[in-house]
């Protein structure tokens, strides 16, 4: 029979971290594809001499800007959680994850506020369809981030304090999401 040298089980190779990175690559492609459609139709509409954004509907730029700004503390808190977890500081890790989740909920709330105050029907036309598709997917990704934060907190605070990889993967999720949302913010809310 065949004889190969054997070895003890190798140290974990950041499986969750890599998996999260791959999911983020897919999420980025999803939002990127939607933004490409948004810009394509925007360009065609403007070239035809028509107005792209319906004039009867205005959304709150304050809320949109707050969403962008809130991602900065989210990233800081997520990194704080990583820093604390590496030092086995459960209290600060819990606090950092809690604040991340709270800010994430505030982010979701701001998007809901924009939907409620704009009150734009989906059936208005191409703009509204693409607006809701882009911002809806972005919102869904933010909700996934909040759920991820909750899972991370439950796992870590539930006693699996050696499982620091999930805390790192969680932080990476928010970094990547922040980059994605910054582009969404610029294209949908600033460029319009």
């Amino acid at each position, binding site marked *: 029979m065949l004889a190969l040298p*054997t070895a003890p089980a190798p140290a974990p190779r950041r499986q969750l971290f890599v998996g999260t990175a791959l999911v983020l690559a897919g999420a980025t492609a999803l939002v990127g594809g939607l933004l490409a459609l948004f810009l394509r139709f925007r360009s065609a509409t403007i070239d035809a001499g028509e107005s792209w954004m319906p004039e009867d509907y205005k959304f709150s730029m304050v809320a949109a800007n707050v969403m962008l700004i809130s991602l900065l503390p989210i990233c800081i808190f997520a990194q704080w959680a990583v820093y604390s977890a590496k030092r086995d500081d459960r209290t600060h890790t819990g606090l950092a994850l809690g604040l991340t989740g709270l800010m994430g909920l505030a982010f979701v709330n701001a998007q809901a506020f924009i939907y409620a105050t704009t009150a734009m029907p989906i059936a208005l*036309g191409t703009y509204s369809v693409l607006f809701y598709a882009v911002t809806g997917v972005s919102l869904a990704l933010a909700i996934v981030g909040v759920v991820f934060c909750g899972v991370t907190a439950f796992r870590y605070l539930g006693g699996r304090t050696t499982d620091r990889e999930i805390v790192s993967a969680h932080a990476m999720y928010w970094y990547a999401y922040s980059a994605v949302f910054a582009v969404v913010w610029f294209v949908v809310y600033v460029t319009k």
Partner: protein
Amino acid sequence: MTTIDTHATSAAPSGAGLASVADWVTTTDHKKIGRLYIGASALAAIGAIVVAGLLAFERTDATGTALPIESLTQLFSIYRFGLTYVVLLPLIVGIALCVVPLQVGARSVAFPRLAATGFWAWFVGSVTAIVSIAANGGPNGGNTRFVDLFMLSAAVAILGVLATVVSLATSILTTRAPGMNMRRVPWFTWSVLVMSLTLLVALPILIGDLLVVYLAHKYPSTSELSGNRAIGEWAEFGFTQPTTLLFLIPAFGFFAETVATATRRRLTPRGTIFAAVGLVGTAVYAAAVQAPVIIRAGFSGLSGSAKVSDLLPFAFVHVLPLLGAFLALALTAQGLKHKPGLNAALAFGLFAALLAVLGAAGNALYHIGDAGLMGTTFEEGTWLAVVYAGVIAGMGAVAHWGPKLWGRSVPTKAVLPLGLLAFAGAALASLPMMIAGFADQPGGVFPVIEPGVPGAVQFEYSGPSELWNFLSLAGHAIVLVSVLAYLALAIRSFAKGDAAGDDPWDGQTLEWATTSPAPEHNFAQLHVVQSPEPLLDLKPSNRSDA
């Protein structure tokens, strides 16, 4: 050094009746999840090829319709969606899920529950999508609610496959055996990694487009995104080439794997073949642009800058994948000069790679405006070459790796003629469609069959086109016969055939270092890998090229 003769307990006993069903439904064993994918897509293949045959039969007589005209649009949708997302993609992903963790020496796949969830999401989504098309939904259906349901369920099915793909790619990147760096991964594993990474870019874009057209369809307005036509227009890229070529990338890895095994030598040049397989992945640009990339008709009359603006994207989207496919085939085939032994999987691998190159070449030609092929059945011919290449690769892969899944093997001499038959059928199904395209037979990814309606495909043609359609019908029939015969042979062999032995093909990679069938956790011990062909290192008689 440890002798690998463990014959550790094979897969956990499944029990009987409901317990067995529950075991399969809740399993997180990658080999079982992979077999679920393979089994479901094999069943779907029979149905989809029957539909393909019906449509080919319908087109043998251009002046009348044998099938109810109102059902043709739906049948074309089932044909396209079914063969692409219910047969080709899940078959390849299922085989990869069975084999890749074994090849990289891992005890399990990464995120096994994600892989299992992915299978069930794909399964439910696919069944719902097919049912919704049959209920007058689908891309060109008349029932609004079922059209909406089709888009949602298609998105769910694709999302499910993506979940499994994440699991696969993570396994390759993180669970390789000690010493197995990326240059030492097996051929098939490398090709699966390329496929996985490209699908992670391409398929989310398709899901996004399905979401947009769903919203526009569900909430109708004057938007150009509303209405059925938008579905075909914006989601079309996901159902044709070169996107479908991405699904077939593992066929090149499988071919290389079989050449190395059959010749009992190290296949070289390793880096160049890896690069060639990677080059096929540049087809992902097609998804990024979400529209056909063409060289406009009247190209010679265009200005210099206009020519460049046509040629550059065309080269990226169509020429590079073709070049990669051709190089992967040609460089791998170089290994055949070392007189391979009789190996059924090798024949299947060669046939699949040949058809893939045919499909890639046809795809490049189709997108040249001056060839005058756009809107014809030429596209269908190239797509069929790719889809049937995937089916043939799947048949070969099951014959090759079947011992690791079932502990028994399919007899080589019985399965070899079926491979030849399937290849002949695939060529006969696809090539006449391409020729009919030169004769301007109208086609389309999701054609609307509405006599007298402007813009709809009329299927009014005459002359030799009827002959080409008849030949294509014969091709589908031959493929169907070969698939059915293969399934019967495989089921009988895997259930009652001879025990295969742990290394029946004199393999080179780690999957052949464990028992047949592989135990639940694949390996009794983790192996250290010191070359790309760890088992070949242990077989001095085979080291003539070492």
